């Protein structure tokens, strides 16, 4: 018996391995191929910034940050089925929590100058706490009503951010973000490590990448646990879920809270990339960006949220690159039928519509199709 188990672990003549235990089957990487590719991917992403230009490094850092926020929103909207337009509000709360705790006290704004090891978890916990307080109210409604309610949250938030000058610097002025000094090590300053001088953007890139990988794995674990299942149960059939012993209120509240935690961390990191944060940043358009991340990437998948973040953040760059070759489109500040930003917005909207109609599973769905096609190649039909 034990001999048979041991031999089935090995791949024979290119056959896929068999699962020999439930723990193995439910693992995040249930095949060796998957695990190896992810490891390769992680290594490539760690080496990449050393071969890229500065603005590209900053852009990919933004991808990681958007992926964190996107994963959070996907837990709430994709897994638990609660459509939220309030993501920008929680990003803002996270950013300002970080700025107050980790920023400098200057020109009328409060800043305590604490270490990142303290302000980063709190940048997640404070929005999570606010979500916990709001949950009994927000979770009474669902579907479109919840979307409108959370939209209201964004408007109220924007107003508060504009008025709370000691915290946010006020409308049009803004304030400096938190200083990412982790246990005394400045993550946003040029450093010399082992004799090599490393660019501050590269250091922050690596820091964000590590945070992103940890949070993505945590979300993946969460999604395959009893909580992930009860999220999906509440989304698919709430009455049946209740009769199974899943508490609707507790489950929805948990989804709201954990999603806000991810949003808060994402907002805190985003504020550092942006450099100076003004209350206008955390508006409805940012929420829509995050909805685009999960709709284009794929609802109820963690890897889909990551693909969506790559797409949404890199799209403007791609559009910029192709506009000179399209006749009739002017560049920034030039004349023409449409400018770059208008074109971006149009492409964005068009893509969301196309994905909803053609591939509701998003980029993740496209990936599944591609994979299944080549799995059976050359007999795929």
């Amino acid at each position, binding site marked *: 018996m034990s001999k048979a188990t041991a031999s089935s672990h090995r791949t024979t003549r290119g056959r896929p391995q068999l699962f020999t235990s439930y723990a193995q089957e439910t693992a995040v990487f249930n095949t060796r191929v998957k695990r190896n590719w992810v490891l390769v991917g992680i290594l490539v992403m760690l080496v990449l910034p050393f071969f890229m230009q500065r603005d590209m490094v900053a852009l990919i850092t933004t991808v990681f940050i958007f992926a964190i926020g996107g994963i959070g929103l996907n837990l709430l909207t994709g897994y638990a089925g609660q459509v939220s337009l309030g993501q920008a509000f929680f990003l803002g709360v996270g950013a300002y929590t970080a700025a107050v705790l980790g920023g400098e006290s200057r020109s009328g704004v409060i800043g305590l100058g604490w270490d990142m090891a303290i302000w980063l978890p709190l940048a997640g916990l404070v929005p999570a706490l606010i979500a916990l307080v709001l949950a009994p109210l927000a979770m009474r409604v669902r579907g479109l009503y919840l979307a409108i309610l959370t939209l209201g949250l964004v408007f109220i938030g924007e107003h508060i951010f504009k008025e709370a000058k000691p915290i946010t610097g006020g409308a049009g002025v803004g304030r400096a973000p938190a200083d990412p000094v982790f246990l005394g090590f400045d993550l946003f300053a040029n450093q010399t490590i082992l004799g090599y001088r490393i660019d501050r953007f590269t250091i922050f890139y690596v820091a964000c990448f590590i945070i992103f990988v940890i949070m993505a794995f945590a979300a993946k674990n969460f999604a395959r646990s009893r909580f992930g299942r009860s999220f999906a149960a509440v989304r698919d059939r709430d009455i049946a879920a*209740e009769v199974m012993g899943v508490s609707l209120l507790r489950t929805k509240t948990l989804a709201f809270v954990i999603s806000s935690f991810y949003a808060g961390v994402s907002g805190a990191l985003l504020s550092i990339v942006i450099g100076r944060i003004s209350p206008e940043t955390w508006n409805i358009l940012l929420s829509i960006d995050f909805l685009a991340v999960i709709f284009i990437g794929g609802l109820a998948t963690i890897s889909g949220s990551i693909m969506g973040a790559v797409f949404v953040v890199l799209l403007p760059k791609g559009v910029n690159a192709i506009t000179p070759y399209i006749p009739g489109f002017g560049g920034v500040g030039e004349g023409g039928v449409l400018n770059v930003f208008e074109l971006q917005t149009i492409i964005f909207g068009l893509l969301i519509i196309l994905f909803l109609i053609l591939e509701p599973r998003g980029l993740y769905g496209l990936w599944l199709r591609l994979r299944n096609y080549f799995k059976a190649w050359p007999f795929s039909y």
Partner: protein
Amino acid sequence: MVELSHESTVISLDGISLSFGGTRAVHDVSFYVNIGELFAVIGPNGAGKTSIFNCISGVYRPQKGSITFLGEELIGQSPEYIARIGVARMFQNIELFDNLTVVDNLMLGRTQHLAYSVLSALVYSPKTRRQETANREVVEGLIDFLDLEAYRAFPVGMLPYGAKKRVEFGRALAMDPKLLLLDEPVAGMNVEETEDMARFILDVRAEMGISMILVEHDMGLVMDLADRILVLDFGERIALGTPAEVQGDPKVIRAYLGEDLSETTKELT
């Protein structure tokens, strides 16, 4: 006509009345179910059978009466609490989680048996892994028992009707219930599927000793399987007894077949 409940009773309903506005769904219905008994509730459409299930599982709250489950009052408790203390339910119109696999649907039935914390789930601690694996084994046992191996990893939404019904049955069983409410388990099934389901129900009863309340329109199945039958009409109890007693009851015949027209016509002429 209220029977006294006694030691061996799993659930007893006493004078249950439920109405929606002016519509009387259930009126003064009382019955009890013994441990290990297969109790059937029948009646024409709209007689209040499913409403009684909704009252027991806490989805509806009856205006009058009491429901005692193993010495505990159920009225006023949440569906989630009632599920936790051992009442499982199979729905009339399949209420499965369509996007989840068969395994995950059954794992949701195990909700009560998983107790790890959010933090433990985020890091997928050994405790989480141990509990997941242990419950997965129970679920796989049920999949085996219900002949669902072939569908194990498919999203339930893709399955054929008969298999979906079996998944529903499995999900209810996964809860390790003390009382199982079966709402039309063979509705829409052909003879073969009905026989399979009847076999599963009898097996569950014999092997696990679970008490069951069965609502069903398939009279053949009810008469063959049930120990006792409650007959409802317009929300009221019109008969209660063994299959043989119920079959011969003139009130039951009238409810199902209508009045004897020949007598009415005689009066007219």
